[in-house]
């Protein structure tokens, strides 16, 4: 049995410690050790975006990050997007626009879209499509997702 490394990181604002093998990805640790199963594995090699998390302010595919790399890092997952006060505007708009069908890609889309709106509060449709091109959705044809993100951006701007 491979020896494990002790890692201290901040996940959704809370200092978190875990043990992992070097070969464990961040996604595996989130899901299997920390019970944060909101991040999904759709492909395992960075081609679908379902496992998107924000690592030190940047959206990444957590399936392509080793957990040992996150020592001292700041990680935000889908579980940290809503607050006790309520849903994030993106989450609210996804619901209002019916921007999800099966919902498996939804956490990844919301995390990736949040990373965009955190940086660029008022992106164009084209910009949103480009930014979200790394997140595959097979149910919606993206139409309602794009509309939801645009609407969320607008809501956040006026708020």
């Amino acid at each position, binding site marked *: 049995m*491979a020896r494990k*490394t002790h890692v201290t990181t901040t996940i959704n604002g809370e200092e978190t410690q875990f043990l992992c*093998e*070097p*070969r464990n*990805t961040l996604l595996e640790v989130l899901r299997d050790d920390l019970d944060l199963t909101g991040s999904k594995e759709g492909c*395992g*090699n*960075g*081609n679908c*975006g379902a496992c*998107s998390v924000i*690592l030190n302010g*940047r*959206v*990444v*595919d957590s*399936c*392509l*990050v*080793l957990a*040992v*790399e996150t020592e001292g890092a700041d990680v935000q997952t889908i579980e940290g997007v809503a607050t006790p006060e309520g849903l994030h505007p993106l989450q609210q708009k996804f619901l209002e626009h019916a921007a999800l069908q099966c919902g498996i890609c939804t956490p990844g889309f919301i995390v*990736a879209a949040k*990373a*965009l709106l955190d940086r660029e509060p008022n992106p164009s449709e084209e910009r949103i499509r*480009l*930014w979200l*091109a*790394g*997140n595959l959705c097979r149910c919606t044809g993206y139409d309602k997702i794009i509309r939801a993100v645009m609407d969320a951006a607008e809501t956040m701007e006026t708020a």
Partner: protein
Amino acid sequence: MYDFEYATPTTVDEAVSILAENGEDARILAGGTDIIAQLKENRRVKVLVDVKKIQETTALSYHSAAGLSVGAAVPCCEAYETEEIAAAYPGLTDAMTLIGSIQIQSRATITGNLCNSSPAADSIPAMIALGAVAKIVGPNGEREVAVDSFCTGPGQNVLENGEFVLSVHFPAPAANSGGFFLRFIPRNEMDIAVANAAAYVVLNDAKTHFESARLAVGAVAPTPLLIEEAGSLLAGKEIDDDIIQQAADLAKGQANPITDMRGTVEQRIHLAGVLSKRAINGAVQRAKES
């Protein structure tokens, strides 16, 4: 995934000695977007050397006179989000904004793209066109290798045992210059290039003639190619469609691709011409606007 060890050297020497000791069994981890995917495909590695703790790898510097230096662990997004860099090296930015998704660009590095040495790598032709040089460190100290002679075959390069690329350097852009990179993929994002091309041109002050030009193409040969003859052809010539087409035809002539699921020999040769023409035109346009 097979088990492996994880090392986080904090100095170049430390990294070099781990690499030298383990030979082929050691691989570098920077952005991880290639190596982790390969490990998942059961590639065996004894030790993964995370170079991100080595200060030099995370350095990113740009001076209008000295040019650009990109550390081996600098992710694409960090480079292209630096406005002066994006403005000075639009051709490189084209490539860096096309590698994978935003998620990939948050991690992937141009050094990693270079060292993975895929014939279809997106940033390599862009680097070649810009005359980039890789700074290699190893047991025998430092050496510099031009990116255009770095790759030696699919997945193969000039790195010797114990060596790794510490950073990539780009000369300062000349006055009246412009760079451009593009690729052809069946989708609009998230794809491996069927073919790609990059051009860097320097125009005369009147912006009517080429002073010099560098054209590079990818995915049409075992390694990305610098089309030197295209540069020689264009230098001193007046800018017109005909001469650009001739330069593009030179790229076609040098293309020596394979047929695989991503493209056929014929398609790739054809695209080498189409993309070269578009790259040169794009670079000229940018040079004119500069």
